[in-house]
């Protein structure tokens, strides 16, 4: 203290004080400014959570429990993350209509804003994967061919070569991926809805997922070209066989009937 008071009159003291004052102001600003912004966000967030909670209480709590802890009718949602909510509600699977082997894709009954609020509420219950951004699932920087290889490695066994879907045990099925939004495909891989296993970033990287989505869009998108003509459902030899029998052999038999039929006789007068 003595030393400090002794140097108070030092010609540079004013400069030091000035610098200190500046540093403090800057520091304080640095500390407080973002904090206040975060606070504002937090309020929006907590608003969303509140709204989500209300929606949840009305639409979901009967199965998943008042606090999302789960019940005999529905699993716990603690820790499933926003991505799972966005997928399940965003594809109309949730809320489920009736018990069955599997909850099917339906008409979506919530708006995207409501889905976001529900997602906010669920992710407030426990940390989980968040909703992916356009940059994650968009086509930029994707390798379609690599995506194809990954798709054949990880997905075709259930979803078929071009994502037409397939059967699982006891009435369960892997749904068709036709017309599913890239975001939802991404979320499904990340979260593993229902009986689908998850493909977390640790084993199927973000880039991998992007590639797969790009491949799917190339082979099962709106303007995918089927060079040979009718795709016949893209199901392989069964539909081809049916087509060959019904339209191929059918047309040829119709022709044969014409070839062998008697020509009309002149009317007797």
């Amino acid at each position: 203290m003595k030393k400090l008071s002794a140097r108070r009159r030092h010609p540079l003291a004013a400069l030091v004080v000035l610098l200190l004052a500046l540093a403090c102001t800057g520091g304080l600003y640095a500390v407080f400014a973002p904090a206040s912004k975060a606070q504002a966000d937090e309020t929006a967030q907590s608003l969303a959570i509140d709204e989500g909670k209300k929606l949840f209480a009305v639409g979901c709590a009967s199965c998943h429990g008042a606090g999302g802890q789960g019940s005999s009718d529905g699993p716990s949602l603690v820790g499933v993350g926003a991505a799972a909510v966005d997928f399940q509600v965003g594809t109309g699977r949730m809320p489920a209509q009736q018990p069955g082997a599997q909850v099917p894709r339906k008409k979506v009954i919530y708006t995207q804003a409501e889905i976001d609020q529900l997602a906010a509420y669920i992710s407030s219950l426990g940390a989980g994967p968040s909703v992916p951004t356009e940059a994650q699932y968009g086509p930029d920087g994707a390798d379609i061919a690599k995506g194809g290889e990954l798709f054949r490695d990880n997905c075709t066994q259930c979803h078929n070569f071009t994502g037409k879907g397939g059967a699982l045990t006891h009435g369960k099925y892997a749904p068709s991926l036709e017309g599913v939004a890239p975001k939802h495909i991404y979320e499904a891989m990340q979260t593993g809805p229902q009986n689908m296993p998850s493909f977390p970033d640790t084993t199927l990287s973000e880039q991998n997922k992007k590639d797969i989505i790009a491949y799917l869009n190339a082979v099962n998108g709106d303007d995918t070209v089927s060079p040979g003509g009718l795709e016949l459902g893209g199901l392989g030899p069964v539909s081809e066989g049916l087509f060959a029998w019904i339209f191929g052999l059918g047309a040829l038999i119709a022709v044969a009937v014409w070839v062998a039929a008697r020509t009309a006789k002149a009317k007797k007068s």
Partner: protein
Amino acid sequence: MSTTESSESRARGKAPAGERVADWADGRLGIYSLAKSNMRKIFPDHWSFMLGEVCLYSFIIIILTGVYLTLFFHPSMNEVEYHGSYVPLQGQLMSEAFNSTMHISFDVRGGLLIRQIHHWAALIFLAGMFVHMMRVFFTGAFRKPREVNWLFGFLLFVLGMFTGFTGYSLPDDLLSGTGVRFMEGAVLSVPIVGTYLSFFLFGGEFPGGDFVARFYSIHVLLLPGIMLGLVVGHLILVIYHKHTQFAGPGKTNNNVVGMPLLPVYMAKAGGFFFLVFGVIAAIAAIASINPIWSMGPYRPDQVSTGAQPDWYMGFSEGLIRVMPGWEINFWGHTLVLGVFIPLVIFPLVLVAIAVYPFVESWVTGDKREHHILDRPRNAPTRTAFGVAWITWYMVLLIGGGNDLWATHFHLSINAITWFVRVAFFVAPVLAFVATKRICLGLQRRDKEKVLHGRESGIIKRLPHGEFIEVHEPLSQEQLHTLTAHEQYEPAQIGPAVDENGVERKIKGTEKLRAKLSEAYYGDEAQIPKPTVEEYKEITSGHGHH
């Protein structure tokens, strides 16, 4: 007949060029004698007689398009990187076989069309053979003298299946590779020699680097070569036996009624070739088949759901899918019944229909030639057997596509599998019983029609108020046609005692034959034809209806 006359008249002066060429050929090949017996050969007209032509023509189309495909296809399993015009596979590793098939599909102009014609024609070829075979079966056209031709046809169907399977495997895509893997598993299940067969077939462990080249020579040379020989033999026999015909006025067992080869059948059959080719080309223009680019190159650690073979192998797929997983281990060996039993039943399903003609001829003991076709209803046991066999086959086809029925009809795949397991045994029996009853019902209806005439649909009121439907009597042609079929008497076991009073031992086969014969032709197995007396009585009694 008239051909020889006109050529004689022209031979006086200098013969026209065409005739001189024909003379030259006749001097060396004897074509005039050949033409004498064949140029005006008669073929009866019926649409179902053209099913065989559908097969013949699709076979020719397959050969023509197949030759074109060999010009571009590389039957090699060497690994290459894809750099063709299909973007979603660029840079992927694949075998040369797959790569060259991609090249044909995307970079050879018209290559895709020819590939699709080839594959569609193959499916139609097999479907045509199936229907043709069933036509022959249900009309009894396999009876003497045509048993050998029945077998030729059957062999063509079986060889066609394997030619199709080997061809389907050539592009080395993920779908067909899965099929080849299945075949390897099936071969491995053969007791004692299975592993050796598998190693010899694949040149070592699966998949190795040989099977495409080996399948290629089987697909383009060995099997089609045998088939071509059988087709020629089949046709020669058709011409030699002359075609069968349905019963009708003027049609007897000793003649064949129809149009001559020159000119009518030349134009109709020749034209039909172009019609078949045209239809198949149009199908190849509008419907995609085996899009290998969607399936990707084969890798033994990848698979897709909905892995099925082409339809003609579907029944074997059904067999293997519904078989319970039985496996017996003993003394350090494994008997893989879960795979081996289906592998054994597979040929038995086919043989069941192939040997039927011989069983029937044994039961009837009929040694005569038959050129008049049966209406299926007039041979109830045969028809019932045929329908039971088709039911059996269809049940297995359902089993082969169980995953697709599950997804498309919202069923459980396990439930479908169980259904097929039960139906495999039950459905043919039900089909047999039901068909036989339907046939007998139709026979009764025919008899009714002969005796009482055709229901005209005209209701008449009689003076005393009664309403009756007017029955129109049938014409002589119709009456003859409806009663022309043959009805066998059930075979009897000969007397147990011979003329010297010595007891004769009755063999088991003889008893069996008598029993079968009773089942075929006993009182409950056919409706007796109307007799002359019955007809006279009814027609004289009620003259007005």
